[in-house]
């Protein structure tokens, strides 16, 4: 029995020890800045930029690698590994001058061969990267390295915004010749942080400061410790207690818990991801433009933002261009109008109302809520929507492009890309089955117009066409909310939420 008593004592002792060390909450010897993510891809995690399966990979990829150029919230291009760029007179060849004296973490010198290799492998179907779809405008044979510090992109047609378009979540530069199997577990980039500890599916990733980073004086932090918590309560408690320093996404439902906390600062991005309700324009009853218009006009957009995003968002105008952007065709989002909706439905022959199924899943946070709110908002107009919730992990594969009414979400893209990615005839993901040669022509013109003001006008026209006649209801753009502990500084969240820049981040203890 002594053994039993001993064990009882040990148990109580363990509990006591665990509780007593509450005062010293910070783990010993921890100079790392602790970052908390929210997306988790488990075994799929990879250090290969071509893999970017989920937002989870961005946490470390964007710290370990660099791209040729960087994009800010207004889609202005900034130098990163490229210092200058320009286009030929015929608009077909873009030339990028590359930075000198940059080294990969392995010690290898960075040169144009690496850039060429990176883009070619992204376009190679054997790599199996999702980049292929978004980089379709590039011609693999047109990517050349005339000398060690220059890389050129020659396209078949002029791509006016090429520098913006080659800067997406996949295009971090890898060393020439690096193999997928190696890169997956051992990242080798030119970025501000080096891989110190990384195993797929492990709870913590540790990245160490790159002492030879080309931007002298950066990064400010000695190291980064990245972890993920999908439980909102755990995440909020972690930032409140100082267990983590930066929380990359605060779920709207727990924002009130942080709003008044003196030790935490909330950061908000500009218009980021958009959420949509997309209909096939060639399927009944959505094939009638009046029906589509009715489906759009029942939404009280601000109310939806307030309910689903708790106010952390902005109303959208049924096209991928945010309302505040110069390329937007309206300065204000459309308002709810039930009378108009009923009138349109009656004119379309549905005076007794409409009934259909809407497929959704929690593919991105809030999507199911949006579907439910939409269904409620449609009711007074006589539209009866049956919301069908499917499993999140198989939604994009099995439901998204396969049903005539689905919810969807898109990350923030420059207008030229955003208006094309799902709505041109050659789009990879034709969410709405929209096929309009006049739309394509308008967009092409916009994308090949050099004069900026003229280009904006063309984008506006394209956007207006899509908004008025297209099959998507885009009621809102999300504003991502992040939390940073007081005592930490140097982090600016960007609308493209995979674009994580930890260079200036530092915490004073």
């Amino acid at each position: 029995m002594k053994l039993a008593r001993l064990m009882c004592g040990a148990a109580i002792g363990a509990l006591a020890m665990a509780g007593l060390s509450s005062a010293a909450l910070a783990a010993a010897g921890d100079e790392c800045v602790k970052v908390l993510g929210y997306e988790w891809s488990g075994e799929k995690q990879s250090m290969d930029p071509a893999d970017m399966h989920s937002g989870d990979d961005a946490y470390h990829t964007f710290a370990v690698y660099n791209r040729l150029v960087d994009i800010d919230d207004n889609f202005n291009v900034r130098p990163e590994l490229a210092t200058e760029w320009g286009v030929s007179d015929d608009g077909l060849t873009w030339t990028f001058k590359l930075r000198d004296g940059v080294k990969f973490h392995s010690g290898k010198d960075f040169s144009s061969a690496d850039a060429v290799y990176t883009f070619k492998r992204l376009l190679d179907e054997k790599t199996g990267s999702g980049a292929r779809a978004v980089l379709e405008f590039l011609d693999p044979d047109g990517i050349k390295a005339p000398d060690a510090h220059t890389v050129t992109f020659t396209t078949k047609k002029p791509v006016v915004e090429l520098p913006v378009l080659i800067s997406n979540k996949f295009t971090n530069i890898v060393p020439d010749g690096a193999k997928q199997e190696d890169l997956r577990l051992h990242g080798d980039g030119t970025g501000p942080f080096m891989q110190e500890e990384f195993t797929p599916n492990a709870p913590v990733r540790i990245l160490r400061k790159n002492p030879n980073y080309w931007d002298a004086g950066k990064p400010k932090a000695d190291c980064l410790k990245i972890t993920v918590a999908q439980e909102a309560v755990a995440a909020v408690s972690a930032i409140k207690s100082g267990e983590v320093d930066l929380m990359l996404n605060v779920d709207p439902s727990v924002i009130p818990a942080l709003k008044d906390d003196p030790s935490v600062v909330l950061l908000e991005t500009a218009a980021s991801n958009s959420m949509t309700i997309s209909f096939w324009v060639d399927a009944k009853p959505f094939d009638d433009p009046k029906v589509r218009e009715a489906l759009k006009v029942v939404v009280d957009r601000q109310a939806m933002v307030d309910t689903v995003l708790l106010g952390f968002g902005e109303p959208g105008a049924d096209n991928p261009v945010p309302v505040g952007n110069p390329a937007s065709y309206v300065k204000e989002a459309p308002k709810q109008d039930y009378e108009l909706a009923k009138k349109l439905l009656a004119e379309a022959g549905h005076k007794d109302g409409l009934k259909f199924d809407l497929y959704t899943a929690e593919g991105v946070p809030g999507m199911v809520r949006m579907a439910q709110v939409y269904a409620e908002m449609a009711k007074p107009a006589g539209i009866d929507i049956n919301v069908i919730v499917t499993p999140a992990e198989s939604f994009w594969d099995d439901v998204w492009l396969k049903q005539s009414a689905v919810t969807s979400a898109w990350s923030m893209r420059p207008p030229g890309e955003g208006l094309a990615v799902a709505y041109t005839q050659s789009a990879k993901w034709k969410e709405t089955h929209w096929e309009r040669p006049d739309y394509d022509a308008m967009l092409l013109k916009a994308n090949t117009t050099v004069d900026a003001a003229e280009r904006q006008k063309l984008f506006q026209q394209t956007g207006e066409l899509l908004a008025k006649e297209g099959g998507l209801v885009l009621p809102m753009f999300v504003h991502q909310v992040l939390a940073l502990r007081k005592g930490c500084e140097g982090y600016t969240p960007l609308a493209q939420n995979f674009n994580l820049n930890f260079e200036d981040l530092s915490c004073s203890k």
Partner: protein
Amino acid sequence: MPILRLVAGRILLSVLTLLIVSLIVFAVLEVLPGDVASRILGRDATPEALELLRIKLGLNDPAPVRYLHWLGGLLSGDFGQSLVSSRPVTDILAPRIYNTVLLSLYAFLLYLPLTVIPALIQAIRRDRPVDHGLSIVTLVLLSMPDFLLATILLFTFVVLVPILPAISLVDHSSSALDYLRAMTLPALTLAIVMAVYAVRMLRDNLIEVLDSDYVRMAELKGLSAKRVLLRHALPNALVPTLNVTALNLAYLVGGVVVVEKVFSYPGFGSLLVDSLQLRDLPVIETTVMIAALVYVGANLIADIAAVLLNPRLRTA
């Protein structure tokens, strides 16, 4: 020797059971609809890439061939590679099993006083308010789903009275104390769930033993009540509780699934849920087999222990 024959027989039966489990697991999971290849490559995959992957992973072979291949692998220690990351399943499982074993040990450590102390109190003060009160508490906790209990504990000890960490930010540079703190809440949840199950039984057994002649004799002999209780009653009452403990171990293997998820603990249970969502077949299959192995193993040990301790069962 008859005992050896008995033990060998039991072991053989257990192996047979595991074999059938493997058949069931393989049959259930290989029928998994949803193309594994497209799940791995994601929504951007081309049909050619999908077919390449299918060939590479041998997904086009007939099912019996794949089963035998897999079974052979299992028996020789080759658990295959993750379909998602191509890492060996052993590499993926090892740290997770380690974490869950630690968690289970810690849970068991907490479970003992959580069971013994209330049961003792209830037995000593039987039918008094304390006894009734504890019975009610036990009943309520018994009826509460473990995910609810976990959520409440998380809220209480992390938000209300923040003495424990919210997430397990431990790596090899963390101290043992950090590990302990990260494990406390999930271990406590598991311990409570197991304890309430055993407290009632231990209480009843204790009362039964305390009423027995054997104990009465000891009391008459003049031994102090406390000595009677601890030295005589408790050991006798604990023996049938051993059976309960084996069952608790069985619960543990399933219970960790929910508890690890709530506390984001990187163990065996959360690996199972993750790999189910990713349709990572080799990991799922191996994980389920290990869970069954633990259950069968625990039962085997309990059976053998019972036989060894109780001669009457040897003729069974």
